[in-house]
């Protein structure tokens, strides 16, 4: 049973390993000439001083919520995709209605400018 998941384990190991290797390679072969200016957090001439807490635009929150809603959609699409061959046309219509309703939401979000970033 669990052997079915072996490819996923291999993938995870490869992905993690690759990340480590890339970082390690940079350390090994990259030129390193540190100086005080380079060590500063930003190099645009602005000293990053100021209060640690800043008000962040509520837009971040909105994007996060929209992301969650569409993410939950995936949870429903997954079992649908697995059984689509069995439930055929009826299943297709059911999912079309489901996505259609959420599509209305997307159009609404789009038209009201919720996705724009000023």
């Amino acid at each position: 049973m669990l052997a079915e998941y072996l490819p996923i384990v291999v993938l995870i190991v490869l992905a993690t390993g690759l990340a480590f290797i890339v970082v390690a390679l940079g350390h090994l072969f990259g030129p390193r000439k540190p100086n005080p200016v380079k060590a500063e957090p930003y190099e645009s001439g602005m000293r990053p001083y100021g209060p640690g807490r800043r008000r962040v635009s509520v837009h971040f929150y909105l994007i996060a919520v929209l992301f969650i809603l569409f993410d939950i959609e995936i949870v429903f699409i997954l079992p649908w995709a697995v059984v689509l061959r069995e439930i055929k046309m009826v299943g297709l219509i059911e999912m079309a209605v489901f996505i259609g309703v959420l599509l209305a939401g997307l159009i609404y979000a789009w038209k009201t400018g919720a996705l724009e970033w000023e």
Partner: protein
Amino acid sequence: MDWQDFLSVLPFIIVAGWATILLLVDLWIPANRKGITAGLAVLGLIAAIAAVISRFGIEREAFDGMIIVDGFSSFLQLLFLGVGVIAIAQAYDYLRRRDIERGEYYILLLYSLSGMLLMASAGDLIVVFLAVELLSIPLYVLAAFAIPKADSEESALKYFLLGAFASGFLVYGIALVFGSTGTTALSGMVAAIESAETTPILLLVGSGMILVGLGFKVAAVPFHMWTPDVYQGAPTSVTSFMAVGAKAGGFAALLRIFISALPGAAVMWMPLTMWIAALTMAWGNIAAISQTNIKRMLAYSSIAHAGYIFMALPAAATPEVAPEAVRAALFYLVTYAITNLGAWGVVLAMEKAEGSGLEIEDYSGLGKKRPALALAMALFMLSLTGIPPTVGFMGKFYLFQVVIDANLIWLALVGVVTSLISAYYYLRVIVVMYMRDGEPEVRSEALLNSTIFITAFGTFFFGILPGFLLKMINQVSLLDLFR
């Protein structure tokens, strides 16, 4: 699954689908013409009313028992749709006056209504849960509609947090009941309890948690703490809809779950509901006495009325009385809806653009300045107290009778005594309107006035001639799930 099944949920499909279409149509309606959205929303509701009427008297289960169509669901759906029409009419001018008019208001209201419609015909605890959420989430947003006004924000936040908390109780209770009976279908639960193939402790804790979750929704003591603040802070037109619609929706679920699906467990929930009813009546009425703000007073009044309707549950624990108890509760819901929509309508007429004019003192001199409005308000206050010749009297009379039939004399006594207490603060409004001098500033908006007129007429008409309503309710029964 066949076409009959789709006809069974047609009212829900119409309202939810129409709301989704309106959501898109509204994008192209200019900001100063949002009356079009309101009108279209009402059209959708009328279509849904026609759909409900066309299948009146039909009893069936649809979608493998997920949906139940019976007299109970059809009657409540008519009530909800009627409330929806009045709520839209009340909101239109108010939103313009307070400068918060947006098309989304009517759309969210339709979605909330669709949740109530679904609730009325839910045949499965999962559908009940989804219906609760569908009726609540738009209400959270509507309560926040006057953002960035601080009181509206406060109202929405409190309503949302406590509502989410209550939903947690509800869904956990559903899980435990499922654990005990092995099903979420209401009909299956009856069978499981009959055959004693249940785990009693899980059933007890589970149904208790469902009671808590829905108790929050209908604002029953001790789950009422949010009510005054939320009702006061929300835009008044939202409060009006919330006080009537959300409460009726909650009771739809309570009656359906406890009376038709869990009669076998009545020994467990009967004492609980009895105490909740008694405490709610007592505390709601006592706390209302000291209120000076009309919105807060009506909020406590709505808590008290939840207590009266709650009495139907312990009464229904006696099997012979159960059908009559359901009818009495439905009748009371109608009286509550008509009277409260009217009273909130008067509050809407008295509220000034910046949100003041909500103290009971502000009603001084209304009797001289606007006799018709004052008369309507007096009628609503009498009806809320339960004094003839108003519909409120008929509602209380019917309900108390059922409670006495179930041999709960002391509970009926609590009801009568608390009604007497309530006379103090309801009649005070009448005294202030007629006996005090003052120069109230009152709106006169055609739509709002007509809703006040209709509800006042209903309060009076059904008060002296309740026959029509009673005849309709006598045909109502919960679809017998024992078959």
